[in-house]
């Protein structure tokens, strides 16, 4: 046991030394090499060349946390309408540009949260657009917490990928600006019974045959592409990278073992290994939804190109038979990150359960009012401070499969930007200004929430 644990950490530390922000590209441990590579460095969508820019904004002179773990001192960010146009210390300031002075401030990408509810996008239903409310007051509260987008989900597949999703922006007052991308993820629950796993294997095999048939049809001029076999539609989307598959554990209930919780260790190694088997079958990395024991098999997770959403401070008791390799570990985000697994952090949803949301009930730390403090707990567990910002920005955007649009301050990406009064992960830091789609949608001094706090 100790040997294994040491190996994991040694590998993790080696990875940390060599490539602090390395990508998770590896071949599957026992499957085929990944075909689609959704986690490769995203190419931001290029704005149409001929599009006339209506308004220019320059965020001037702040220390820019790019979102990938790097920081550019005293750097300007030029926004063309709703997109980032240029980032640099020497940039051309377009005539008539609105200047936002960020001297002495910190500029960071808006947080893209992998798990949230509220913010003007009610749960349930199959189409996120049906319930949108751009004037929901929790949008402003979310912006005050640094959140500019989140992954909205509805439903999940039983034994196979399913459900709907969208990345929703906190574009206050702008209905058209709220939906960033739609159905970039699918989800399913673990564990699968032997029978369900066997069915799933069959479907993947059918999907592969179908892919081959489509390729063959494409090579022959007069052949029509065959229809996808029933039940493989979602699997095909996951295999092609169009959708990222989230895998959650059905065995929860570990929050309050003494108060009626099941005492189960939740998403343990057995279930994680099954999820890795699914990733290998599909040939693409998957997203593990709070995999409690992934830290103990980080190399196996990395080998499949998979990713993880974790709540760093969630405590789950270990199995007394194998205390060193079971249960939660506050170092889990650090170990996974060092192994090359993209990690997003989420908030414990608190004793009242449910998807985390903005709170007005007062139990701070169990709501989404301070997501940066959850990333701070990843630092407590050993993740470097700068890299830990990725857990709310670039890596969380990757996990939502929206990193072509959001998650970092790079030319071509959406202008979802925060101006902060300090280190992004310091508990006392507040958002001073938030922009979504290039528009200022929150100013601390203009809203009642935190304007009374002055230091």
């Amino acid at each position, binding site marked *: 046991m100790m040997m294994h644990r040491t190996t994991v950490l040694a590998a993790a530390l080696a990875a940390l030394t060599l490539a602090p922000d390395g990508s998770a590209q590896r071949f599957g441990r026992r499957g085929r090499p990944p075909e689609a590579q959704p986690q490769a460095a995203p190419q931001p969508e290029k704005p149409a060349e001929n599009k006339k820019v209506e308004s220019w904004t320059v965020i001037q002179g702040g220390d820019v946390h790019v979102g990938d773990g790097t920081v550019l001192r005293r750097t300007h960010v030029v926004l063309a309408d709703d997109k980032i146009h240029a980032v640099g210390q020497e940039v051309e300031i377009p005539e008539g540009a609105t200047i936002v002075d960020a001297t002495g401030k910190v500029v960071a990408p808006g947080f893209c949260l992998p798990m949230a509810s509220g913010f003007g996008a009610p749960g349930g239903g199959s189409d996120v657009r049906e319930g949108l409310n751009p004037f929901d007051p929790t949008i402003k509260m979310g912006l005050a917490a640094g959140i500019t987008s989140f992954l909205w989900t509805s439903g999940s597949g039983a034994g196979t990928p399913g459900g709907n999703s969208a990345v929703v922006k906190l574009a206050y007052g702008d209905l058209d600006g709220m939906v960033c991308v739609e159905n970039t993820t699918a989800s399913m629950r673990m564990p699968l019974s032997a029978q369900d796993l066997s069915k799933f294997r069959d479907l993947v095999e059918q999907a592969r045959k179908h892919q081959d048939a489509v390729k063959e049809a494409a090579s022959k001029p007069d052949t029509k592409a065959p229809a996808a076999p029933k039940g493989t539609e979602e699997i095909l989307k996951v295999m092609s990278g169009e959708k990222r598959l989230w895998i959650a554990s059905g065995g929860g209930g570990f929050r309050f073992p003494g108060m009626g919780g099941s005492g189960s260790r939740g998403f343990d190694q057995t279930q994680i290994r099954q999820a890795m088997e699914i990733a290998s079958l599909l040939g693409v990395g998957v997203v593990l939804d709070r995999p409690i024991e992934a830290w103990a098999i980080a190399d196996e997770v990395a080998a499949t190109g998979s990713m993880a959403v974790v709540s760093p401070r969630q405590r789950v008791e270990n199995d007394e038979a194998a205390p060193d390799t079971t249960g939660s570990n*506050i170092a889990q985000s650090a170990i996974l990150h060092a192994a090359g697994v993209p990690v997003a952090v989420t908030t414990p949803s608190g004793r009242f359960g449910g998807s985390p949301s903005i709170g007005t009930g007062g139990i701070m730390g169990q709501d989404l009012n301070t997501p940066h403090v959850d990333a701070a707990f990843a630092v407590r567990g050993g993740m470097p*401070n700068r890299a830990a910002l990725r857990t709310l920005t670039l890596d969380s955007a990757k996990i939502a499969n929206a990193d072509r649009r959001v998650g970092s301050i790079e030319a071509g990406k959406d202008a979802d930007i925060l101006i902060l009064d300090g280190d992004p992960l310091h*508990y006392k830091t507040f958002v001073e200004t938030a922009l979504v789609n290039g528009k200022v949608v929150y100013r601390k001094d203009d809203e009642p929430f935190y304007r009374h706090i002055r230091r």
Partner: protein
Amino acid sequence: MDRILTLRRATFAALALGLAASINDASAQEPSIDIYFGRKPAEYKVAITGPDRVESPAYAFRFAKIIPVSTAPIDDGIVLTRNGKIVALGKAGEVAIPQGFELVDMSEHWCVPGLVDLHCHIAAKGFDLNDTVHQTNPEMRTVDLVTMDHEDMRNALAGGVTTVLYIPGSGSNMGGFGTLTKTWGRTPQEALLRFPGCLKIAQAGNPERRSGDLGMTPLGMNAGLRETLLRGQAYYEEWEAFDRGEGPKPELRADLEYLRGLFRHEYPIAVHTQIYQVVLQTIRQLRNELGLWTVIVHGTFDAYRLSEFALESGVPICNGPRQYHFDRGSGWGSGSGMEGAFVGTANGWYAGGMHGFGETQRGVGIDGIGINTDSPVVAQHELTLQCAMAVRLGLPDAVGIRAITLNQARFVGVADRIGSLEVGKDADMGIWSGDPIDPRSHVEMTLVNGNIAYKRDPLKPRF
């Protein structure tokens, strides 16, 4: 508000005259609040205390920074510990390290006092603290339940928490008697600081009897509390008369014996009370009318608006597990004058303010504010996170660290043992990688009574 002010001033004056037994904590500086304290251990007749001295090795620690809390921080300092106590502390080079002391080099770490939480429900393996058949339960106690070796206590140590007031739940108005215990000990007896640590009262906001019988609203709940407390007071007076040789020896009453100690001011009432209206009842009934040593250990929602009333009544506040009040501008909890704001309640108590009234209300100040978790509602090891959230919302840093150490120790009368790093006090220390309030810092080692109770495993740190 004016009427209340007049009333409470009169009551307070009467109490100040009438209660000669009151012994105030001596402090070098004028404290920001004149907390009503009870008796010292030498005068206990009902309460019991744990051993004052326990075996522990002779250690000489060297730290990057020592935060004694009661005195100014020391950079590059030495702390010597032996047999459960701090035997010396000061700047490196100024403190001689005697022979036989094992040198422990923690010269990249900070040393802070072991943290104290006065609202804890996790000092036993199970969570079984609400027996709610009766509305008041003075016959119940937690001292028999304390267990050391379980997950929640290990996590507490990993969060730097070394002393807790382990209290019954708030399912009934009077849950029973709490225990002041360390979070580590070779036996529960070794860990014991004092039993009873307090009487637990839950004034409202949980103990409501929802089946519709007596105690459905504050009227009935207060009646039940008052009746039980007055019975206890009568029993206490019988014993006092006997002790003066003025009456027969009373028959021992198991259900009232600990109330006798309460009226002897050997320990306080720790009150789960919250919301302006309810805290008003608490301070009036328990502190000002019955004259009891009263500590608020929940103190949330808009109750901070009573900061001046608490100050004048000598009632200190532990604030939590809620750290802010959000006034929606209408209905229950409104009137704070801070509509739509996330108001830090710990800071509201501490600093005072307009609080929605016509004149500024004074706050309880640096000596009157504590922060609690109500573990497991907020995990015990997240006491520092609660403090970070309070500081985020306005509480000054220097007050934050006091609020989770020395202040809480003083509130319950055990500051002679714990709460700050001073020669002669218990060697309860959290050894941190940096500022303990910053969630990015972690505990490297925790000492309880001079013994290493937690040491961080670098491969699998606990918290």
